[in-house]
């Protein structure tokens, strides 16, 4: 998450209006899925930082035993997702969808994310990749060459189960 909060600092330096809508949040944007039957078809949130995490919460009166389950395609996982539950997934990389809910039930969802383009904008020295490609060959070559390192480094930022348990208990391994 340090990468996310560092990005926020950079963005606020560009424009002080780019503060997070929620003061404690490291994410730059959020989505309000107002239903009344928020049931997603399989998708990846391709605007997100691809290895970045994204919290998703479900709300509303629906039977989580019969609908609203989360389906994650690549890991081949389906699990119940209750009203009030929150999970974190790399939503730009993992295809996800919901099991439909029953007629008359309501389901909302709330998600937070940061666009990958914002990170690329900072990595490219406050320019888009397209601009760099057209105007700065050296920087563009370096940016492309550093891609695999960013990719692997990004995924390595995730924690192991042991580390998560330790953090949940208030200590660090």
């Amino acid at each position, binding site marked *: *998450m340090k990468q996310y909060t560092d990005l926020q600092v950079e*963005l606020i330096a*560009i*424009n002080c*209006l780019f503060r997070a*809508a*929620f003061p*404690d949040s490291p994410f*730059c*944007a*959020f*989505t*309000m*899925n*107002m*239903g*009344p*039957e928020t*049931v*997603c078809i399989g*998708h990846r949130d391709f*605007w997100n*930082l*691809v290895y970045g995490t994204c*919290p998703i*919460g479900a709300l*509303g009166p629906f039977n989580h035993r019969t609908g609203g389950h989360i389906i994650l395609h*690549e*890991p081949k996982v389906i*699990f119940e997702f209750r009203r*009030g*539950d*929150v*999970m*974190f*997934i*790399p939503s730009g*990389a*993992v295809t996800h969808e919901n099991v439909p809910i029953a007629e008359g039930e309501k389901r*909302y969802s*709330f998600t937070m994310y940061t*666009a*990958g383009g*914002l990170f*690329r*904008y900072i990595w490219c020295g406050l320019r*888009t990749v*397209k601009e760099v490609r057209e105007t700065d060959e050296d920087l563009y070559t370096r940016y492309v060459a550093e891609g695999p390192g*960013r*990719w*692997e480094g990004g*995924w390595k930022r*995730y*924690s*192991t*189960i*042991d580390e*998560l*348990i330790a953090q*949940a208990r208030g200590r660090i391994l």
Partner: protein
Amino acid sequence: MHELTYVVKVQQPRRDWENIYHRAESAFEVLSKHYSLEPHRRGHFKTRNCGVAIGPGSSVRGILYLSYLLLSHPQAPHLLSESEAESEIHAEFIREVEQYVRHFTGMFLPRHLACIKFTTLSISFSSFVDA
């Protein structure tokens, strides 16, 4: 246990959580009255994004147009488009869900949340295109 964990389902807090998420649900109920159903790539439900974005796929919020123009080029980061009326509605929504959202962000604060379920994913680096 030494593999990296990419998906985490967070335990629901014990105290007051029901009241907190009921309040958030009421905020969704109110908000949804201001929008109509439109099909989109993720399904058929009302949806709206807020916050900072970048690129040609999103437009600039009206009151920030001047600061947007002051930036050096047209694809700079900007706040997602919303009318003044929407801005007020969203501000009210944010106030109502603030406590609920703290559950999303609390793990990034000093006191970490407990996690009860973990799912490990095997992701091959070659499976995806580098963004």
